[in-house]
């Protein structure tokens, strides 16, 4: 159970996530949606421990520390770097079952597991290819293979299907469902509401302020969506300082 208690995450003095409270239940499959600039990626950063909350607290059970798998936006990775597909997938063993960490050498068993992961995402045979030579869809599959290998109880994904073709999206969504079926907690930041409605049982609608958090059908109602889009997506230059400890969040029954 990941609990957020009145969490505010800021860039300098501007909140990207403003007074958010709620929980990610273990084994849940949650989508985070909202307009651009709504703080969704920042929230993932906070969950990972990369950004410290300005107010409130994010509580993780101790066994989860260091066992959160994270899929970054592709732009954060330097694809011109000369490493092969297999090298990237093998990194999953850092915290995965091989527990190789930073130093231990990989053996034949770990290599075989990595190849299996590649096969599971449909990239068998591409082990030696340099990552710079892959298409966006192929590279996304590689990152998913790494996630597979990491075998983590919590998986966070930042816009996993941006600019990915339909076939790849369908395959990877199937993986997400598989993980959900295995009892892992999966949280994904997404833009495509149709996808969310079709595949994600729970949703958090975020527009800096939390608009709604609960079962998808009830969260993605027109009223909530309208409120989210009205919420200014630009930073107001001289907004007053925040005095409110925690605004009311329409908590929809789980």
């Amino acid at each position, binding site marked *: 159970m990941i609990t957020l208690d009145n969490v505010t995450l800021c860039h300098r003095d501007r909140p990207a996530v403003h007074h958010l409270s709620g929980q990610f239940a273990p084994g849940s499959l949650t989508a985070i949606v909202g307009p651009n600039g709504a703080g969704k990626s920042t929230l993932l950063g906070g969950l990972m421990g990369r950004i410290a909350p300005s107010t409130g607290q994010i509580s993780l059970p101790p066994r989860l520390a260091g066992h959160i798998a994270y899929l970054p936006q592709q732009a954060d990775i330097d694809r011109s*770097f000369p490493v092969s597909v297999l090298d990237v997938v093998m990194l999953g063993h850092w915290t995965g079952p091989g527990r190789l960490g930073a*130093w231990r050498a990989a053996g034949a068993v770990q290599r075989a597991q990595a190849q299996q992961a590649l096969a599971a995402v449909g990239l068998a045979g591409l082990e030696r290819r340099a990552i710079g030579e892959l298409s966006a869809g192929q590279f996304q599959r590689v990152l998913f293979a790494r996630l597979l290998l990491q075998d983590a109880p919590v998986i966070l994904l930042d816009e996993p299907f941006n600019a990915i073709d339909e076939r790849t999206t369908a395959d990877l969504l199937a993986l997400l469902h598989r993980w959900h079926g295995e009892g892992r907690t999966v949280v994904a930041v997404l833009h495509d509401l149709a996808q969310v409605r079709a595949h994600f049982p729970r949703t958090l609608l975020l527009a800096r302020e939390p608009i709604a958090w609960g079962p998808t059908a009830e969260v993605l109602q027109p009223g909530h969506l309208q409120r989210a889009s009205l919420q200014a997506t630009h930073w107001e230059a001289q907004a007053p300082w925040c005095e409110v400890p925690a605004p009311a969040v329409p908590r929809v029954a789980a």
Partner: protein
Amino acid sequence: MTLLASLHAALVQPFVEFGFMRRALVACLALGLSCGPVGTLLVLRRMSLAGDAMAHALLPGAAVAFLLVGLSLPAMSLGAFIAALAVAALAGGVARFTAQREDASLAGFYLIALAGGVMLISLRGNSVDLMRVLFGSILAVDDAALLLVAGVASASLLLLALVWRPLLVECFDPGFLRAVGGRGALHHQLFLVLLVANLVAGFQALGTLMAVGLLMLPAIAARCWAHSVAQLSVIACAIAAACGYGGLLLSYHAGLPSGPSIVLLAGAVYLVSLVVGTRDSLRARFFTAHRHRVA
């Protein structure tokens, strides 16, 4: 004389006959071994000019040590090491805690260091001291310098083997490293320590201006021949070692100054690689066969 005998006389005899040639060769080989991977990482991290900046940052430390203690190799190396580390730490700190980017803060601090070093030397010493501090001579490698170079090379290789994986990951996917608790900042600092150590060892052998040449040129030339990081490092080592050997022979047979011979030979290898290398070269760009496989 038979071909074999004359080849022997040209390529092997100078090293058999003269101890200073052997020492110079060992120093070059040792440096080449550690400069290979370090230079490769520098190039891949787009820090190719940072090597030169750090080489200049060595000066005030060496100057202070020289003015305090005299021409003592351990003192000057230590002073240089501390000065360069200080510049790296300050530049990194400023980049982290202010809006300044790392290349700007590094430029700022190394210029301060360089000017400070020149000022120190001209206030207390005179011009010849500056030259002596700047240019080591590979022909005058004594026991202490040889130990330093070999020691630094061994330590570098050992350390690199240990932290190779996090160092690489920090280059291309720092987010992943953070996610698994990999302490990217620590490894970055460790890399800078390695860089400074190799530069200090190189400056004792070749001088500050040329230490960077042996660090950068082989790694840059290697990009025209290989792609994976491991291959790049190995090829860079090989080029550095070969240029050390070849440069010494040039200096021996043609009477050219030894340091510039080695670096210019590396430069020539780079130019040739640019033209005829198997990848990222002019040949690959303009002269590849126009065939393609079936879809």
